[in-house]
């Protein structure tokens, strides 16, 4: 049974493969031999009779396999690649599937754990994907992660074709998967569903990108193992696994010239009791100043961010206990000229080329601004039954999210204004308990899980969404089967949800209650025609009940200068995603990963303008109501790579999406415009002196004009198409025993003026101009 080509691995394989070709590798002054010793994690004895299967890198034909002898040794020679895929199966031990970066070490140890696949420890830097999915997805490469994370979590994820940004100026961005965002995209932060005020377009995910070792996106409905409502998909943000037998520390620095951004992130991991008790502490601080558009500074666009996390792990025999706590705080200046009084002011702002307010460069954050903090606590317990085919996991988590929005518009009364209170203030607390059971036998993996959550939201300041509480409970089952050229996966899930809201209408306290219950399912498969050519197909469903803002919001959305009116009569959305993909790996010099999908969403909830504008004492405000449509989204996105030579390659990324209302045949708004990028990459194949690896690349990004708009749907027509030029260089330098990873890039090299359709501040300002960024990763010891 060889499961090497399972989807999770393929993702990783592709990511790793691109990494090798385009960029940094962790080591290039590599030896061509490697001895891997397998040891029992508990007693440190060699493991004999383990079956191993190894892919020696990007050339799919170099594969090797065998069985370990009494010394637990896997001896590899003639390694030409800098990364190898390792897959090891041993009876009574958890299967290892990982990517090993070939360094100057010629011997490494792998400690195998009894049954528990969450605790694989490899004593070299190694990727690890523990999920097996037939659902299309993609993982970010190490280079993409390191070079873009100082910009923010959404900006980092946007490296993946099909993932775009819905932005509010240069500092606030949310990830959008195939045109869907907010409550339709689930972010799993270290396995916990991130619960903040994710319904708002100007509410960015509250996650420190520096915590992530891996980021992965599963696209479309069907991720039933994780959620019933992930209509757009699931984003995984995973920290590194705890190191029970090694100590390491690293420093990450990031800087940006455009807005004087500086980020410092420190991480240390170590053990307190060898092989038993380990910890990781991590902290990040980031400041940035006024953003510069090619012709002016965007007044009040500075930001500050302070984050920290602590992870503790304890292993005893077949038991494992893990604690994770993190805190995220951000204060974000909102571009002053975007906060407008009423519709008259908005049209005035749109009509002028230059914002009414500009400024000099500074780090001051004044009104309007947002202050958001998010804390997360998680306790996870894992147990492997003695025959190691069974695995039980229970997770308890609690999150608190506190969001304060300070309007530019101070209270009219000077005494009240002096208090400097936020105009909008929401607190949301969520507690969850999840449990799952995995059973592996002869190519099968059966999983069964339950998931529950309680959530409470309170507000003060101005009314926008009511107090509410939500109860959720779900049960799911999933089976995965692998044999020869096939991978097949099927799953079923049912969930119950209750939402009780509390708000005043006049002097009457209303307490509406809603109940929903529905089923989601998934069926997927993958067929490997050859080791280098795979086809996959997946169908999944998801359903999402209306959120509190969609049902009950009622009021003035100041930042947007709109009045939004909820609709208490909304039904659940029900989505079915059909997707198919092809994976090609160095097939006649071509590599490709292309995914095409159709997402059919019944009762799609959409916020649409309603005429006439609402008349208030402050003038007329455009008014938006929630309606339901039968939406049809069709997308194709992917990466195509052509290897000109060992050192040179050409890469093309494309994301194309169309969305229409099935009944009216009209276009659906707020979807991304067609996006293409192409790059030429040069990679230093052999290391030279201290330079272990290096690469340079030049890329062009073209975003077409969003012409698919229905008349009178927006305040202003969609902005023109734009093209930006970017260059990047990276190097891995060896200084003594350490290797420093350096990354220099210039975004918008030509300082082009442009506005993006999905940036709401396109009404007010050009996007960010040229930005020279430097990122550095320095291991302090390891």
């Amino acid at each position, binding site marked *: 049974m060889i499961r090497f080509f399972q989807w999770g691995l393929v993702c990783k394989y592709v990511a790793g493969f691109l990494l090798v070709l385009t960029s940094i590798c962790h080591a290039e002054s590599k030896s061509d031999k490697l001895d891997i010793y397998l040891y029992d994690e508990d007693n440190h004895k060699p493991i004999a009779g383990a079956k191993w299967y190894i892919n020696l890198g990007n050339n799919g034909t170099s594969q090797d396999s065998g069985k370990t002898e009494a010394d637990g040794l896997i001896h590899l020679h003639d390694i030409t690649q800098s990364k190898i895929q390792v897959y090891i199966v041993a009876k009574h031990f958890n299967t290892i599937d990982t990517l090993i970066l070939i360094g100057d070490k010629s011997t490494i140890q792998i400690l195998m754990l009894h049954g528990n696949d969450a605790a694989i420890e490899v004593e070299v830097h190694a990727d690890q994907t523990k999920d097996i999915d037939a659902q299309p997805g993609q993982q970010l490469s190490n280079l993409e992660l390191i070079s873009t994370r100082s910009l923010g979590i959404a900006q980092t994820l946007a490296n993946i074709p099909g993932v775009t940004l819905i932005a509010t100026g240069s500092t606030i961005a949310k990830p959008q998967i195939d045109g869907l965002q907010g409550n339709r995209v689930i972010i799993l932060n270290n396995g916990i569903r991130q619960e903040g005020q994710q319904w708002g377009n100007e509410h960015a995910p509250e996650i420190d990108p520096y915590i992530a070792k891996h980021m992965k996106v599963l696209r479309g409905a069907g991720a039933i193992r994780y959620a019933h409502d992930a209509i757009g998909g699931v984003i995984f943000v995973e920290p590194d696994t705890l190191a029970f037998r090694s100590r390491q520390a690293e420093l990450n620095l990031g800087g940006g010239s455009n807005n004087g951004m500086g980020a410092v992130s420190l991480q240390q991991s170590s053990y307190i009791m060898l092989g038993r008790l380990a910890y990781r502490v991590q902290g990040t601080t980031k400041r940035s100043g006024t953003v510069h558009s090619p012709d002016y500074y965007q007044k009040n666009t500075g930001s500050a961010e302070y984050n920290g996390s602590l992870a*503790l792990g*304890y292993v005893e025999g077949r038991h494992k206990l893990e*604690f994770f*706590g993190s805190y995220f705080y951000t204060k974000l200046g909102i571009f002053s000229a975007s906060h407008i*009084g*009423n519709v*008259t*002011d908005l049209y005035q702002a749109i009509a002028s080329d230059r914002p*009414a307010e500009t400024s000099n460069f500074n780090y001051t954050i004044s009104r309007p601004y947002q202050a958001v903090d998010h*804390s997360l*606590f998680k*306790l996870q317990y894992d147990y492997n039954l003695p025959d190691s085919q069974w695995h039980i996991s229970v997770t*308890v988590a*609690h999150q*608190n999210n506190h969001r304060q929005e300070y309007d*530019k*518009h*101070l*209270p*009219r*009364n*000077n005494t*009240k*204004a002096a208090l400097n209170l936020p105009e909008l203030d929401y*607190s949301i*607390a969520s*507690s969850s308990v999840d449990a799952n059971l995995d059973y592996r036998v002869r190519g099968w993996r059966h999983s069964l899980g339950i998931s529950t959550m309680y959530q*409470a*939201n*309170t*507000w*003060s*300041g*101005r*009314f926008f969404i*009511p*107090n*509410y*509480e939500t109860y959720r409970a779900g049960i799911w089952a999933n089976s995965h089967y692998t044999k020869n050229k096939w991978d097949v996966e099927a799953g079923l899930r049912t969930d119950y949800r209750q939402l009780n809201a*509390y*708000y*005043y209408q*006049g*002097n009457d*306290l209303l*307490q509406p209650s809603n109940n929903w219950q529905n089923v989601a399912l998934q069926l997927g498969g993958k067929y490997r025609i050859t080791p280098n050519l795979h086809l996959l197909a997946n169908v999944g469903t998801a359903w999402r009940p209306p959120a509190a803002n969609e049902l009950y919001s*009622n*009021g*003035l959305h100041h930042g947007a200068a709109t*009045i939004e*009116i909820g609709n208490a009569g909304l039904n659940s959305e029900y989505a079915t995603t059909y997707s198919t993909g092809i994976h090609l790996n160095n097939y006649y010099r071509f590599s490709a990963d292309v995914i095409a999908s159709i997402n059919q969403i019944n009762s799609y909830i959409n916020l649409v303008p309603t005429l006439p504008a*609402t*008349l*208030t*004492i*402050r*003038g007329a*405000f455009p008014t938006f109501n929630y309606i339901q449509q039968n939406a049809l989204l069709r997308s194709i996105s992917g990466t195509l790579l052509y290897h000109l030579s060992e050192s040179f390659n050409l890469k093309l990324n494309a994301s194309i999406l169309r969305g229409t209302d099935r009944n009216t045949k009209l276009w659906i708004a707020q979807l991304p415009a067609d996006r293409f990028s192409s790059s030429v990459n040069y990679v230093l194949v052999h290391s030279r002196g201290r330079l272990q690896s290096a690469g340079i690349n030049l890329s062009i990004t073209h975003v077409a004009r969003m012409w698919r708009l229905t008349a009178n749907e927006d305040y202003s027509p969609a902005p023109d198409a734009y093209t930006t030029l970017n260059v990047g260089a990276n190097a891995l330098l060896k200084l003594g025993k350490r290797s420093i990873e350096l990354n220099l890039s210039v975004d918008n090299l030509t300082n082009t003026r442009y506005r993006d359709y999905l940036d709401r501040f396109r009404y007010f300002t050009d996007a960010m101009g040229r930005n020279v960024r430097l990122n550095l990763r320095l291991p302090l010891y390891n």
Partner: protein
Amino acid sequence: MKVLIFTIATAFLITACEKDITTPPKPNETELITTCILTLTDSANASNVVKATFRDPDGEGGNAATQFDSIRLKANTTYNTQIVLLDESKSPADTISKEILKEQNDHQFFFNNTTGLQIIYADKDTNTPSLPVGLSTIWRTTSPSAGTVTVILKHQPGTKKGNQADGDTDIELKYNTVIR
């Protein structure tokens, strides 16, 4: 190990404290202007009083305004005009215009009218140079016509210099106006 579990349990307990969600705050406990009343008195005939009221008892959003009168004036007449602002969501109603007068250095009314009407500011604040507030004004009508008068109240803390574009808009009401 015990210490670890204790620390974690404490962390959970601390974060579990929440505000009571079943007793939400009443909306609009914050400041609000629900009502704007223009009282125009004929300077030649004190019994000729014209009142024009805008009233939206629950503020912005929610229910629509319940009253929005037109201003009906006589041609070639001079009116002494007073503006009264109320917050009628409170009981008794709060007279916001008194607050405006008290903080007159930070507020100003602007009147954008179509032709046929002339508005002269009658009051002045204590600023140097002194600038009008606009709570009491003199309106002079000429020939019969129809149009609109837009009453704008701007909050301009520290920036008041008679410029309508500055500051935040607290009121912007476009009254239909008829001069006969």
